[in-house]
């Protein structure tokens, strides 16, 4: 089936996830869909699968518009999608998961079919086990088998290779090739792993900030892809931070730690930080950098190893103790995790700086609002601020005296000028010996501001280098699993 996207726009509130994408997908081909985090890949695919509707534009199947797409209608058209986070039912058994939304089958039949398919790919999925007992990879396998069973004409695989072994991957790729070539199905393969895309795809589409940045045919060149994905111009580049002062001893260290998050764990992480040092974390989302930040903040558990700060062991202590030790965490989800939607700016200042009372708080707020150029009245509630202003408010609320500042995406959603302003403040703090660890999707930003850069891939720390000795391109390759650390 031939699929045509016509000028697709998708807005989430004020976020433009897709901004005018036009595209044709021919049957019998395997497409790669690439792009940095938040580029809009998943959003585009979800619209194709009927899970959400475009704000503007339409999708044509064999040249025909089918009206409002719902999941069942899309399934009817033969579009099946495998999610990057498995969309399944942990409490139900494997065979029930397999059957749900699939063909009408009785239990025996379903189990038999599941085993047939599983054998073909050498996936071993115990049918009576609950899905919770499976690994994420196995759950993806299960979902994949379900889609294959459905006989989807258009198969969307959103990062299907995150949880499977190399041999399984080969089987999967073989199957995909077979499905596309022999059966004329369209396969869209969303991934961050360049090698896989290059190996498998007949065409690669690159999204960048909601737009189609490129449409490439083989032979693919990795550097070109990286360039298209991450861009060469920088959003928040600008001046570099203060020089790292030598001969200062590390004040914080992480020793052979096993960090346990909600979804995954990061093993054997070691790290030490010197006063005034700025460390940038590069990596695609879900590869470990957010876990590192949160563990250092005391928000997730440290199962093994130690966190030592100023001679004191912090692992296992409650979050408040980390705070008292001078650690501050700056979350990426501003309204969800960082602010109180219905409280006013003044009230936020009052909560963040409890010692100041009465009038001084208002003065403090006004000062903060001015200094950080927050475009809002002091008594406006946080909910009504624009994304950028929420970000600035969050920055203004960082306490004065801290030793370690952990930031998730400090300039996400800021324009260039605002980004510069933020880094100006952060640099100021570093001069007063505050250390900084930040993550960012903008590699240029990392390169510009860090003294040291850590790169994460596949839930491992793959590189820890001084900023001078690593280029943006190399970072991109490392993040995509293209090279090993020198």
């Amino acid at each position: 089936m031939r699929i045509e996207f016509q000028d697709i726009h998708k807005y989430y509130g004020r976020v433009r996830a897709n901004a005018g994408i036009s595209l044709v997908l021919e049957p019998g081909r395997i497409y790669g869909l690439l792009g940095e985090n938040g580029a809009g890949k998943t959003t585009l695919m979800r619209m194709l699968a009927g899970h959400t509707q475009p704000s503007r534009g339409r999708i044509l199947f064999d040249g025909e518009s089918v009206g409002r797409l719902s999941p069942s209608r899309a399934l009817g058209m033969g579009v099946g999608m495998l999610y990057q986070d498995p969309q399944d039912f942990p409490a139900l058994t494997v065979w029930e998961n397999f059957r749900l939304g699939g063909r009408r089958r009785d239990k025996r039949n379903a189990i038999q079919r599941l085993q047939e398919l599983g054998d073909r790919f050498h996936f071993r999925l115990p049918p009576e086990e609950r899905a919770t007992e499976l690994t994420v990879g196995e759950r993806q396998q299960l979902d994949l088998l379900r889609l294959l069973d459905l006989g989807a004409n258009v198969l969307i695989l959103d990062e299907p290779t995150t949880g499977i072994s190399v041999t399984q991957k080969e089987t999967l790729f073989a199957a995909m090739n077979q499905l596309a070539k022999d059966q004329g199905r369209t396969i869209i393969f969303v991934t961050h792993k360049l090698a896989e895309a290059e190996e498998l795809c007949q065409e690669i589409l690159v999204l960048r900030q909601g737009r189609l940045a490129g449409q490439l045919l083989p032979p693919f060149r990795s550097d070109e892809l990286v360039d298209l994905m991450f861009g060469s111009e920088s959003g928040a580049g600008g001046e570099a931070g203060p020089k790292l002062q030598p001969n200062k001893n590390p004040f914080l260290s992480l020793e052979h730690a096993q960090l346990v998050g909600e979804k995954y764990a990061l093993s054997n992480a070691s790290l030490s930080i010197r006063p005034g040092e700025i460390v940038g974390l590069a990596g695609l989302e879900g590869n470990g950098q957010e876990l590192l930040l949160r563990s250092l903040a005391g928000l997730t558990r440290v199962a093994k190893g130690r966190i030592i700060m100023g001679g004191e062991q912090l692992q296992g202590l409650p979050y408040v103790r980390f705070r008292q030790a001078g650690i501050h965490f700056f979350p990426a989800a501003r309204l969800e995790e960082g602010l109180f939607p219905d409280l006013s700016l003044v009230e936020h200042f009052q909560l963040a700086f409890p010692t100041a009372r009465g009038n001084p708080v208002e003065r403090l707020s006004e000062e903060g609002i001015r200094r950080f150029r927050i475009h809002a009245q002091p008594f406006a509630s946080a909910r009504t601020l624009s994304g950028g202003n929420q970000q600035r408010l969050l920055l203004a609320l960082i306490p004065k005296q801290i030793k370690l500042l952990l930031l998730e995406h400090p300039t996400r959603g800021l324009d260039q000028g605002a980004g510069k302003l933020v880094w100006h403040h952060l640099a100021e703090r570093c001069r007063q010996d505050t250390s900084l660890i930040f993550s960012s999707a903008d590699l240029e930003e990392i390169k510009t501001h860090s003294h040291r850069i850590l790169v994460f891939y596949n839930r491992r720390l793959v590189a820890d280098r001084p900023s001078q000795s690593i280029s943006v391109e190399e970072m991109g390759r490392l993040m995509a699993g293209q090279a090993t650390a020198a």
Partner: protein
Amino acid sequence: MDFLALTLAGILSAGAPIVLATLGETLTERAGVINLSLDGTILLAAMTGFVLALLSGNPWLGLLASTAVGATSAAAVALLGLALARSQLAVGFILTLLCRDLAYFLGHNYARQLGPELPVWSIPGIRDLPFVGPALGYQSPVVYLSLLLTFFLWWWLFSTRAGLELRAVGEQPWAAFTRGIRVQRLRITYTLLGGALVGMAGGAFSLAVKPGWGRPQGAEGAGWIALAIVIFGGWHPLRAALGAYLFAALQVLGIHLQELFPMLPASLFQVAPFPVMILTLLLVNVGTANWFRDLTLRYPGLKKWLNRWQVTAPAALGRDFRPEKEA
């Protein structure tokens, strides 16, 4: 022997309305919706059922009316709690109070009147058996219905496609949505169906088990107990029914126990289900508490022990689902 059989008959009969209500709420909660209004709904349904039976002379019509009242009350939960996204708990709680008072208000003049009752059925093959006969042979239709429904729902929930979809909706509505299941529609349907069963429980009270209407009717508190039993029953029809019969047994035998142990306060037997509910909830939920997770890291045996006891609530219980908002 006979006494035992008759006591068993008494338990089956006293348990019938609780079973119906528990099954209804289990159904609703399996779809991810909490209908907290049981206690009031049962009373309103009991009143309506009785009054309609009285006015029409037909108890079956009364039972039908009770069922309809239950569904109507559930419809209010569906409208406010699902369609308009108010807190399901808040809506249910208000309905509890409202339906109860409404029942007392509208039923005022029908209190303590003798009205029609559902007949006692005697089942030919069964009634002549020894022991089973007196226990099961002569019962109200609602007793047979509650027994049949228990097994029917068990089969239906775990062995049919529709049952599978129902559970899916209560577990991961978003995932169910992506598989083409109409989440909101199913949720509303099961809220109404569950409510209908709850309403039928009211009718079972006023037309069979505690015939008549009055203030009190005797069904007061049954709704809360049913809610507790749903949790105790781990959202499983068989376990839930078992819980309901256990409670009925506690009530029936409580009368004996009280004579055997006069120092036990009478209210003990009335209150007992609630600490059990709290304890069950504790076992269900404590596993997610951070301190407990740390503890299980240290003592893995604890987790195994807990797993043996644990039941899990439908993962999306009480959560709002709207595809346009997007999880």
